[in-house]
């Protein structure tokens, strides 16, 4: 069946065509820009440290290591076992420090406190410090994140 009149004018058709073209071009421009803004910064699955650097630690002391681009804290407990944390506060991401005299981790930004096992005990931190898993394999100390075999 032939329609006797046009559904839209030539002007409308051209406007739609040009509008669609401009829209498609913008979308094609925006996508790479958005992708470009987010560089890949994957957290490491594991970090391997030489045991020699860490075996002489006294109980109740800590040593730093690089967990990707975050500070990692390795702590020796009183029973000689090792425990590791990602050394950033769970409140607003400041780097924390260990205060051996008080047996607590402390975040200076907003007065956040964690006990020696990383549990949040005072101030604004909503969660315990993120714990990493430490294992000893020969001369290597392997620090893994949760869920990595």
């Amino acid at each position: 069946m032939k329609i006797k009149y046009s559904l839209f004018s030539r002007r409308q058709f051209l406007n739609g065509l040009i509008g669609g073209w401009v829209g498609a071009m913008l979308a094609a421009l925006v996508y790479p820009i958005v992708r470009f803004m987010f560089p890949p910064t994957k957290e490491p699955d594991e970090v391997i440290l030489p045991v020699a650097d860490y075996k002489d630690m006294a109980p109740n002391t800590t040593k730093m290591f690089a967990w990707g681009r975050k500070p990692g804290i390795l702590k020796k407990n009183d029973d000689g076992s090792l425990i590791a944390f990602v050394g950033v506060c769970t409140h607003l991401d400041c780097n924390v420090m260990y205060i051996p005299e008080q047996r607590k981790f402390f975040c200076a930004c907003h007065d956040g406190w964690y006990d020696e096992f990383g549990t949040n005990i005072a101030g604004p931190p909503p969660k315990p410090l993120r714990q990493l898993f430490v294992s000893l394999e020969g001369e290597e100390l392997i620090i893994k994140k949760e869920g990595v075999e």
Partner: protein
Amino acid sequence: MRIWMDERFGLSSVAQFLKNKSIPINKHTMWSYTGSAILLFFVIQIVTGFILIFYYKPILEEANASVVRIMTEVPLGWILRSVHSWSATFMIAFLFVHLLSIWINKAYRRPRELTWMTGVLLLICSMLFGFTGYLLPWNDLSFSATKVGTDIPRAIPIVGEWVTKLLRGGEDVTGDTLTRFFGIHVCILPIFLLVLLAVHVYLIQKLGMSVPLEEEKSRKKTKEIPFWPNFVYREAIVWLILFGVCLTVAIFFPPSLEKMADLMAPAPEGVKPEWYFLFLFQTLKIFPARFLFISGETVAVFLILLGIVLFFFLPVIDNKPEERKGKIVRATAFLFILYFLILSIWSLL
């Protein structure tokens, strides 16, 4: 020559407009000078900023050292950096006074709603200038303050994580963040600010200066003086004084050089943002970790965002300026000043 230029540019109508422009004179006229004072400091920012770029290096390894060089080796570099830093402080301070005076005097009433809204956007833009500029010397205080500042959006569900990564250029505050902040500070924000400023100034010219509510009601002819030259001369006096004060403070209290930031070092004691963020910083600090079943941080961030939205739409909310509602809106301004002062001082204790 003048005629030749005018045939091409047609600027005589602008000159004519400025010649006929007049400024109402009343007991609130003194607040009109705050706007041009902001403009003065903004121009100082542009000039000193251009000059600082000649020596500043926006990369992780060199940023701090290049600021040290500006402060110690480059002839008069310390004054230029000091003026840049102090003029920013003055600019923000005058922005607060400017907006508060308009809030209290209700100069944003119809038809000046959009003038207010562009003004609020200019304030936000200027605070972002401050936020991005604070990181550029790359010292341990500004590093930790930026970690906190860029982590705050994370408290917003769904988009928050994304915003944080966008600001930081990744998961953490690193050299990428520094370079990104530099780009935002010297390239993206200036464009936004200039466009907003153009709209803002255009609206002020189009709509003229507001007269106080009482005077508008009494309908008697308001006292006026010509913009050119009378008002401009008065403004020139204010500018000279303010420039002198800014320069004096900059010479006697130059910003210090702190230790270079270390990505792995624990946050130093006394981390704090620029003074105009202190009240927000303290607000975040006093919120408990949990608030019923959601995190206190999320509640605080939402309250702050709500505050900004209400502030932006103030002329729409305050639609009956003479009635009880209008009085409450005015009282809120004083409450805000009180809140700002108390929390800022508290955070310094």
